[in-house]
């Protein structure tokens, strides 16, 4: 079921810049389905974490007012090539997804 979590990591001189695009409808519950006319139920990511080598670096709590297919960019000092960045989320339906990516060498 997992919708992709897309991640791009760039190692700057002393921090890793991480950009994440998460596929998720982030439905507010206020939108009408154009076909049925019914309100599409609320369905949004509530909690999101970013980890570096298993240690939490970012912990985010979200409302339904974060955009559809949400984008987050953050920076972690002291990251080195080969370090593992993890992203995980859980939504109001109890659904979740996660992914990891290694910090690349500086380009």
């Amino acid at each position, binding site marked *: 079921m997992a919708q992709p979590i897309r991640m791009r990591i760039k190692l700057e001189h002393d921090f890793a810049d991480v950009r994440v695009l998460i596929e998720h409808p982030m439905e507010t519950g206020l939108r009408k389905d154009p076909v049925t006319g019914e309100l599409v139920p609320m369905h949004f990511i509530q909690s999101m974490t970013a980890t570096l080598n298993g240690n939490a670096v970012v912990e985010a709590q979200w409302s339904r007012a974060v955009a559809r297919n949400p984008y987050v960019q953050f*920076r972690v000092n002291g990251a080195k090539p080969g370090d593992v960045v993890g992203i995980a989320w859980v939504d109001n339906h109890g659904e979740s997804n996660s992914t990891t990516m290694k910090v690349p060498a500086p380009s």
Partner: protein
Amino acid sequence: MRVMRRALLARLCAGATLWSAALAGVLHPLLALARQWNKKAFEAQALADALNELGLTKAAESREVIVKAPEIAENGAQVPIEISTAIAGVDTIYVFVDKNPQPFTASFSFMNGAQAFVVTRIKMAESSLLRVIVRAGDKQYTASRDIKVTIGGCGE
């Protein structure tokens, strides 16, 4: 909460790959975090109620909280914002959109080397103040930007 956690665990167990060694370290903090999702704060319709619930009632205006946001949002469904600060000891950045039905939009907490810096995209129902509060221990700082949201008739 407990029911939700069981349901979550059930779903997670169903996806065997999620329990691989590489990912186990990712999920543990997530479950703890999910339990702390502040329903009262997120569902508050009055800004004051959200701020009270979050204990953010003494934020001082600060030029050191840098909020980059559009003057006129191209589309209220995808408004890019950037928040950063050089203030020391920041643990959390809180984002509010005053005129959204529920003003409390997001919080980002930083630890273990993460910078007090975040870029994200938010939804705005109408023209509103974007309000940011930064917490550094028992100190709170705030900055805001006025963002206009228009709904035009053509667009191209």
